[in-house]
């Protein structure tokens, strides 16, 4: 396949690496907490690159001292949405930064068919291109089912 060589969604950090184990995720979370970031769990079944805002699973977790709390939330998100994409995002609230500082995928559906190019012919034979997820045709909640 030319358009989806790895058969995997590559968004955020570590996405070209093999999936992180829970121990590795814990280390990353721990690192973020040391930097003072607030972690949040987000999920979606529409991972279009322009879909920036995924659904939040619970509230962002401020004032945590240990990664166990984030892992607890991740675990419950995984059991609720086993077939969805789930990512952890770290918000850096430092004055003047106030943005997401880390973000990586921690759960993927078993099969990731990827995206296709959609071509649209407009005025004067101009071509417009866009991409569309193969699974996006199916209704929300029914995507990425085997």
């Amino acid at each position, binding site marked *: 396949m030319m358009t989806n060589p790895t058969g995997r969604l590559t968004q955020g950090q*570590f996405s070209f*690496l093999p999936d*992180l*184990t829970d*121990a*590795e995720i*814990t*280390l*990353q979370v721990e*690192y973020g*907490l*040391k*930097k*003072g970031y*607030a972690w949040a769990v987000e999920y979606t079944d529409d991972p279009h690159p322009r879909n920036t805002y995924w659904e939040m699973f*619970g*509230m962002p*977790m*401020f*004032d*945590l*001292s*240990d*990664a*166990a*709390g*984030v892992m*607890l*939330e991740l675990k419950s998100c995984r059991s609720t949405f086993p077939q969805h994409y789930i990512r952890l995002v770290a918000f850096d*609230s*430092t*004055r003047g930064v106030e943005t997401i500082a880390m973000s990586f995928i921690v759960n993927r559906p078993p099969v990731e068919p990827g995206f296709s190019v959609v071509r649209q012919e407009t005025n004067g034979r101009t071509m417009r291109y866009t991409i569309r997820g193969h699974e996006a045709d199916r209704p929300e909640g029914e995507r990425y089912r085997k």
Partner: protein
Amino acid sequence: MYNIPGSVTSPAAGTTPAKAGEGDAVLSSQSAANAAGAGVGAARTVAEVMAQSQTGAVLDELDRELVGLAPVKARIRDIAALLVIDRLRMNQGLQAQSPSLHMSFTGNPGTGKTTVALRMAQILHRLGYIRKGHLVAVTRDDLVGQYVGHTAPKTREVLKKAMGGVLFIDEAYYLYRPENERDYGQEAIEILLQVMENNRDDLVVILAGYGDRMETFFQSNPGMRSRIAHHLEFPDFAEGELLRIAELMLEQQNYHFGPGARELFREYIAHRIRQPQFANARSVRNALDRARLRQASRLFANPDQELTREDLSTILPADIRASRVFDLGAASAQKT
């Protein structure tokens, strides 16, 4: 809810230590294992483990700075010993199942429950039982919500904050209100029980409260009682111990008793103990605060006097004598 300063406080947003190097973002899980066992090496003797974890220093500090409380200290020693031996067992490749360390502290007001809880967080952290060593102190308001569906997220948030440290629930008996069937406290208790059981490695829960009311609380929540391994009873302080506490308190604030003041304060304690609403160390602290007030106004009365370091830090008998407690004590002595 508040994080008690002195322990590891939560990183306030914005004021983050940006020192943690980029190298911290390690990917290998092997280094996780190394980090967990950092500084433990392969100790073979109790002394080695003690030296590596500085347990001895913490226990000595406990002895030095906390007056009395013999049964409590004994239990803390037992727990420390168990954790040290577990370390050694682990080094020898023996099974060392992490013990359940949830505790309940019962005792009269001012017997040092909160102080000991704070220490407990430090000790367990040094022994490597908890990872961060911070104390999150909460009461009913922080756990129980005000409407349907509010309690669970609230309780879970507090629990997440406490992970890696100690969750100290003060006046825990308020969680359960038998008189109101639809009280949300029960929901908080259930979530608490679940996390206490499933996340035993992540946090230690300490419930505190006055003896008799905690007894009723445990009777109506048998699940809670059985999940708490250590029930610590905090005894009341004796007069001598209270005097020693007073001296320690003054020392910490750079004050000391002037000539005769110490004896007079001993008399004060003897009177105060017999009066109602005596709250042990807390009453002593309040009495000292009032003595400081009187000392301040005594010095204030002579605006032209040059005040030395000694003047400013001495509590004289007159500052204590003015207390109402002596009149009441005398009155009750006349009556009998």
